[in-house]
């Protein structure tokens, strides 16, 4: 048998059965070909690799946001503590105190501010024992989503009210923020929390 005959499957050219056999052999040889194998392997591995890198970046972002939120909470609490924010009496007025110290990628309308105040450390400790809760500031009615930052005063969360800063008052300030991660849609939602506890400075309340 000549080489030409071997390549075509042998036999007389033009024979139907032989042509089919030759085509099958060519298909078999294409399975053995290694041309572009690296590309195919990379295409197989790439999704897993990129997901992995993406998860690492998301973790970094999440933990960075936690640190930033804690810093913003402490700074906002300090303004309340030093009497610099005595006029704060509504959620709308309190939220900017926190928001001013947050980077622009935080959506401030999703912040939940929880301020518990007490006249003594014992009352504060009693309040502190109530479960820390997060309330979604967004409500959807008739397809329209509205986000309202909530401020709670005392153990009972009553949106829209906050006790104004008073000298020697004890307070716990918590700021919740739902981190907008891609994994949220898969049940990996993460609520970040910044907390500060302090006693308001004995600043003078009357002007002479």
């Amino acid at each position, binding site marked *: 048998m000549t080489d030409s005959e071997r390549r075509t499957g042998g036999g007389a050219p033009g024979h139907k059965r032989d042509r089919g056999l030759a085509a099958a052999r060519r298909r078999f040889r294409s399975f053995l070909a290694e041309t572009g*194998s690296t590309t195919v392997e990379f295409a197989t*591995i790439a999704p897993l690799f990129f997901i992995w890198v993406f998860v*690492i970046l998301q*973790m970094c972002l999440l933990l960075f946001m936690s640190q930033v939120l804690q810093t913003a909470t*402490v700074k906002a609490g300090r303004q309340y503590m030093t009497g610099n924010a005595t006029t704060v009496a509504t959620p709308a007025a309190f939220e900017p105190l926190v928001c001013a110290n947050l980077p622009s990628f935080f959506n401030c309308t999703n912040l939940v501010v929880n301020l518990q105040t007490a006249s003594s450390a014992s009352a504060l400790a009693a309040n502190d024992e109530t479960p820390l809760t997060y309330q979604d500031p967004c409500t959807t009615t008739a397809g329209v989503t509205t986000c309202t930052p909530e401020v709670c005063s005392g153990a009972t969360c009553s949106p829209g009210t906050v006790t104004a800063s008073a000298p020697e008052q*004890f307070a716990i300030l918590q700021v919740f923020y739902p981190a907008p991660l891609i994994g949220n849609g898969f049940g990996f939602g993460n609520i970040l929390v910044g*907390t*500060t*506890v302090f*006693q308001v400075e004995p600043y003078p309340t009357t002007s002479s």
Partner: protein
Amino acid sequence: MIARLRQHIRRGAGQWLRNLSGTASVEFAIALPVMAALLLGGFAVTSMVLTYRKLCDTTTQLADMVSQLGASGDPDILEKDLQNSMSAVTSVMYPASTTGLTITVGLVDFNAANTPIQGSAPTAPTTMWIYQLNGSTLTKVVSPAPTASETNALSVASLPPTSGCTGTTVPCYSYFWVQTAYTFQPAFGGQYIGLSIPMTSQVFIQPRNVNVIYCTTDGTTPC
């Protein structure tokens, strides 16, 4: 027979070594443990930094609170007030668990010569006291305590002594010593390897309303 088998194996091994198919998958499999360690390690280290930051915030915020205890003309502080301040500040650690958190508050007195007064005069409330909160239990302890070098370093500050304060056992001014200790357990390492990392933070702060603080259990009885 054996020689032929050897030759067969040698030839097979050679072919296997020369075979380049699946290279990317093999390389990925080799890199996977390193990447997994990078991910878990990065998460653990960053969580630890975040927890340590919360621990430091807990310490400084408690120090700020206890420094306001005591009032001019009434230098007594109640053991219960101390405990309430300590338990209120534990919420700063959230979302980290407060299990394994120990908070210690003590007082270091100084005499007119700026020398720390420690452990003398058992009947007087001037003796340095140390309280520790572990969970919800407050106990008076002897240790941990600030080291002699730390308290001696403070005395260099040489604050103005209380008027008429003389002698070596009479307290002229004092410092609160606040220490927090926490055992951090990484999410993965703590569960599967039993890894735990102890961390501490401490602050010295002077009482703001009076020079010397006296601790009492009921307003009159020394702690």
